[in-house]
């Protein structure tokens, strides 16, 4: 089994379901009163990830990728199975825990503390976060004034500054410009080198190709394939008929 040498994350037959309020899929029944439904988002996924591995998660919308990441982050309870992790897991989502009405600097502080940094560590890494996010003066303005790319950059800067043992990125890089993509790729490589594990959800196959050594393919909450990036993407392309981008060079070969 891949990743069994020095595991950082063990996911054992995990099922995740959650209750939703306000609507039911079987709409003829109890539409107005008792509109509560149970969504089974992940149905029996198992894998082992090791230190220094970067893993991409692919699959159609609603295949359970984000839900699985939330469960690994401990943010959603599993209904069956178990997850074990070595160290802290940080999840960086499109709607990560930042408060739109607050300025960027307050969000840096809040986000850092939420990820388990001490106030001293937050102060120490503050400049690094602002530089990396490249938001300049906007750091003093409320985050609702940010463009989607700016807030994605700030979120990424905060989560990666906490240097978590397991960093999970949920489509957060999609809105960044080319320059930011390059910098975030360098940051991810650096984390992986320091034996972190990176899990990346993306619909951009070129991002997956350039950043991940291994890919998990989820379909309707089940694991369809797990293996080296090129093999899984080829299989994915064959079975779904979707393009998976041409194989690209590894990041270190990309000209600056």
């Amino acid at each position, binding site marked *: 089994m891949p990743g069994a040498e020095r595991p950082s994350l063990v996911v054992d037959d995990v099922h995740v379901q959650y209750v939703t309020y306000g609507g039911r899929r079987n709409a003829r029944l109890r539409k107005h009163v008792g509109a509560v439904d149970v969504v089974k988002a992940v149905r029996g996924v198992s894998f082992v990830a090791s230190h220094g591995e970067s893993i991409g998660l692919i699959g159609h919308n609603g295949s359970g990728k984000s839900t699985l990441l939330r*469960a690994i982050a401990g*943010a959603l*309870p599993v209904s069956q199975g178990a997850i074990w992790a070595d160290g802290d897991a940080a999840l960086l989502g499109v709607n990560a*825990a930042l408060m739109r009405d607050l300025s960027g600097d307050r969000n840096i502080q809040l986000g850092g503390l939420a990820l388990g940094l001490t*106030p001293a560590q937050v102060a120490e890494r503050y400049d690094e976060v602002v530089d990396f996010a490249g938001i300049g003066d906007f750091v003093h303005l409320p985050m609702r004034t940010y463009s989607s790319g700016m807030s994605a950059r700030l979120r990424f800067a905060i989560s990666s500054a906490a240097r978590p043992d397991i960093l999970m990125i949920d489509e957060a890089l999609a809105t960044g410009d080319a320059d930011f993509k390059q910098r975030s790729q360098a940051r991810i490589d650096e984390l992986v080198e320091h034996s972190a594990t990176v899990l990346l959800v993306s619909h951009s196959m070129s991002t997956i190709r350039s950043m991940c050594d291994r890919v998990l393919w989820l379909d309707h909450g089940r694991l369809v394939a797990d293996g080296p990036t090129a093999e899984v993407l080829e299989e994915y392309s064959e079975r779904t008929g979707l393009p998976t981008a041409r194989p690209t060079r590894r990041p270190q070969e990309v000209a600056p």
Partner: protein
Amino acid sequence: MTPLAAIAAEHGLARVGVRPDLAEYVRQVWRRRHFAVALASSKAYSRNQGSYLGQAWAVLTPILWAAVYLVVFGVVLSTDRGVANFAGFLVIGVFLYHFSASSIQNGSKAITGNRELIGSLSFPRALLPIATVLADLLTLLPALLVLLFLVPLTGEPLQASWLLLAPAVALQWVFGTGLAFLLARAVADVRDLARLVPFVLRVAMYTSGVFFSISHYVDDPTIANVLQHQPIAIYLELGRAALLSGVETSVGTWLWALGWAVAAVLVGFVYFWRGEERYARG
């Protein structure tokens, strides 16, 4: 044990998403205390930030409330309701009642209203009710400052007993945090309970002696006795006794205040902790 569980055990990995025991949970909450404080101050700050006057509203809001109540009850309805310094009595009552009411209201939504935060980060969820009520306390502090300026204007002398306002409010805060633990979990389990909160608050307002003295208005001695030992009435009495020379309190009342606070926070915390694994997205 499954083969994967054996791998996890062999490499000493920690299980994710299981509720730690109570002592470990308390330690985790304590380790993340700075997060609760930062979240509380951010929440309190953002309440006023979306306007030109911004943080000046922290002081202007309580002044305007005090003015409204004084005009309505002091001028329009013109009654002293059997209380020596009715203006002082009323303003202290309204401010302190509002503190407990917002702890209850915001505390009940501490889980359901923070789903984004819960869905993206793992931290002991007890920090959310704690931060919510702390934000209410931070909102109360400027109002208390206003109070300390207003009360002398109603003819009250500056006294050493004013210092007792601090422990009285501290106990009320602890009590509010306990209630927030209870309500946050109850509403997370059964959403519909949130709809009942406004009715509970209205009952609490009329039975806590916010606008009148319980002993003056309630004739039945048993009912009066029950109402006077009701927690919010107890905290209002302590606040008034601290600032107003015409209101007396006793050691017994302080013990009741302490008892309510300790009982609420202990029962609330344990009840909340037992539901820790279930505060999911929904």
